[in-house]
């Protein structure tokens, strides 16, 4: 099917602008939607998405607050839970009139896909969960080991604060518009994975304190869990938990190490996704 901006959707342009949506690849074929995780933007898919461009439309976007998204659209109430981000994904699917799309989400992007698939049956027809974790916190009540404690998340927030100190002041001329220094704007365009410090802190809080374990059971589309080796953020135990909770899901252990196989091992990641596509 062709991917094109739907005229039925009143606010199509607004949605596509808000989430900095870019559509590439083949005009026809089953669409793939790629969602980045915390700390990054859509550039992380630069070595994976093109691998599908020949036969599929590929849709990249930035979560509001990240990358080239519209920062003025950042509504603290809307984005106080991952449901707000999932609602954005549904709006993007509506705006592009996607049907039976394959949603490829990394880390928290995977959880957002789990929520979005349940909000928009028909739009999202399959899920690829790359290094997913439905809950990063340990739960002493039932022995679940997300890998982190509340103190660890506070430590992350301090780390964020330490790295963003002074960031606002440095970027202010860019936002205010500085015609004498166009290189500032250029620098912003070329900068990967930048975000506003207050948004980064809020997104970190929402991401790492969320618990969406109960939402996994509601997934009814074919699902692939891609598990990395030696991933300190999403351990194999967590990946296997996701696999158990999502009925009928497939579990693939990658050789790639770390939390970002789409960056560290794009060929292996793309091959695993392709193998999944061929059977669903």
């Amino acid at each position: 099917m062709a991917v094109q901006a739907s005229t039925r959707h009143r606010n199509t342009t607004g949605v596509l602008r808000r989430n900095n949506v870019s559509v590439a690849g083949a005009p026809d074929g089953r669409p793939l939607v790629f969602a980045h995780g915390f700390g990054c933007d859509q550039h992380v898919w630069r070595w994976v998405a093109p691998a599908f461009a020949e036969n599929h439309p590929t849709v990249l976007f930035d979560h509001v607050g990240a990358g080239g998204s519209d920062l003025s659209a950042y509504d603290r109430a809307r984005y106080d839970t991952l449901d707000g981000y999932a609602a954005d994904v549904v709006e993007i699917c509506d705006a592009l009139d996607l049907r039976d799309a394959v949603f490829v989400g990394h880390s928290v992007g995977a959880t957002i896909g789990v929520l979005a698939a349940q909000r928009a049956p028909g739009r999202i027809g399959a899920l690829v969960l790359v290094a997913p974790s439905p809950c990063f916190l340990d739960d002493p009540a039932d022995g679940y080991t997300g890998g982190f404690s509340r103190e660890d998340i506070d430590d992350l927030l301090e780390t964020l604060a330490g790295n963003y100190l002074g960031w606002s002041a440095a970027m202010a001329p860019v936002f205010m518009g500085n015609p004498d220094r166009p290189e500032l704007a250029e620098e912003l365009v070329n900068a990967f994975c930048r975000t506003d410090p207050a948004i980064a802190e809020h997104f970190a809080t929402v991401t790492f304190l969320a618990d969406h374990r109960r939402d996994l059971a509601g997934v009814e589309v074919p699902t692939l869990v891609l598990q990395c080796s030696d991933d300190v953020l999403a351990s194999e135990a967590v990946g296997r938990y996701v696999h158990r909770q999502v009925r009928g899901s497939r579990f693939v252990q990658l050789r790639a190490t770390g939390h970002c196989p789409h960056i560290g091992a794009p060929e292996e990641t793309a091959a695993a996704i392709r193998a999944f596509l061929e059977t669903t």
Partner: protein
Amino acid sequence: MTPGDTDFPEEDLEDLYEHAPCGYLSTRPDGTVVKVNATFLDWTGHRAEDVIGRPFQDLLTPGGRIYHQTHVAPLLRLQGSVKAIALELLCPGGRRLPVLVSSDVRADASGTPVLVRTAVVDHTERRSYERELVRARKAAEDSERRVRVLHRAAAQFAEATSTAEVVAALAGILADEPGNAGAGVWLVDPDRAALVHAGEDGPPAASVADAAVPAAAPVPLAAAVRGHDVVAVPTPAAAEQDFPAVALPMHRARVESLLAVPLAADGGVVGAYQATFRRRRGFTPEQLELHRTLARQAGAAIERSRLDEEVRHLAQHDPLTGAANRALFTSRLDQALADARRTGAPVSAMFLDLDGFKAVNDGHGHSAGDDLLVEIAQRLRRVVRPRDTVGRLGGDEFAVLCAGADPAEAAHIARRLEEAVRAPVAVAGRSVTVTVTASVGIVVHDPGSCPPASAGQLLRYADAAMYRAKALGKDRHVMYDTTFGTELPRLTAQGVRATLPG
């Protein structure tokens, strides 16, 4: 080396690498450390064999590890380098060493990364200074926000002229808190030993409580009132453990945490509010204190507005029977007439005089007469429609306002009034039973066919009709009409018409 530098000792590059004033690490693209210099080992206290072969991110604090894996590592691949990233190294014994980290990727001829070079600079002094700065800024922002909330509350509570307005202002303030999934206010109803939801729309689904909460119920709202302090439910697990009754409603409403806060006033707890949140919250002492202060302000405002309402009620009601006094009845009738001009609906007013009241007063004493009036007023209130007003205009004279009632409906209500009055009444401590009847005069104002009329005029017509009922033999109602003599304007059963006295 330039000729001028001949007396400068020759640098041993190996020594320069090992003892440079910054730490050096070489890692594989996946982060595994393959080479480390002596400075790094000195600073951290690690032994080389503990570092070589481990992923670099393992050397970081947990929060730094997350930041590294989610942001720094991808950035390094995308850009080929990262500069001055603030992280903390976790050293033996649990010591933390704040550092700035810069890395460069070395690629082979095909562009494939083969090696990452990382330089580490001790950042301890600036880090602690920056951390203080961040903390101070955060504390200032938090405190400014709290002051803003309380300032807004003080202003809005001061403007409120009724309990309902205080409740609405409080609900508005709570609704503006980020992440709030719904907040509701409940007021103590001592008669029912319960908390009753206050507000127009009933309890919002997300607020996870019934419209009426029994005082003894095992739920946060009731617990907050019983314990006179904030009850925090920070997670679904805490709900299941402490308040199983709300765990399922919370899950259904997609609420993960909530706060129940008692509205304390000088005279005791007057109610409580419940704020619900979409995700779990670790409520800080400052947040809880903000809620306590907000609740104290609201509690005091509610207590004050209730006293105001009581004073206003006293000024507008007959102290013996609780019925509206003449001033309130007249103002309600005027209001009904004004509304009728807009809507075109009829307005009925009745004048009711008891037949035989003087005999009760004379025969059994004033106190028996008072008992009779109290009972009659109660009966009248029971048989009129919920929005009708029963007033006592003096002595044994009552009046009833029935907005929207046409002549047929007014007559129907009048019959119910007569019947209610006719039933025997026990007075003087139930020792004596007396019986009285009512003579009722009715006037129906139809704005479509009558010129504008005032409350005073309508009451005079109803009074005249009441006298006609007395003259016709009492215990009956009479509708005002045109045959009532020349001293009054001509009327019809449909309403006041024409020829008002100039």
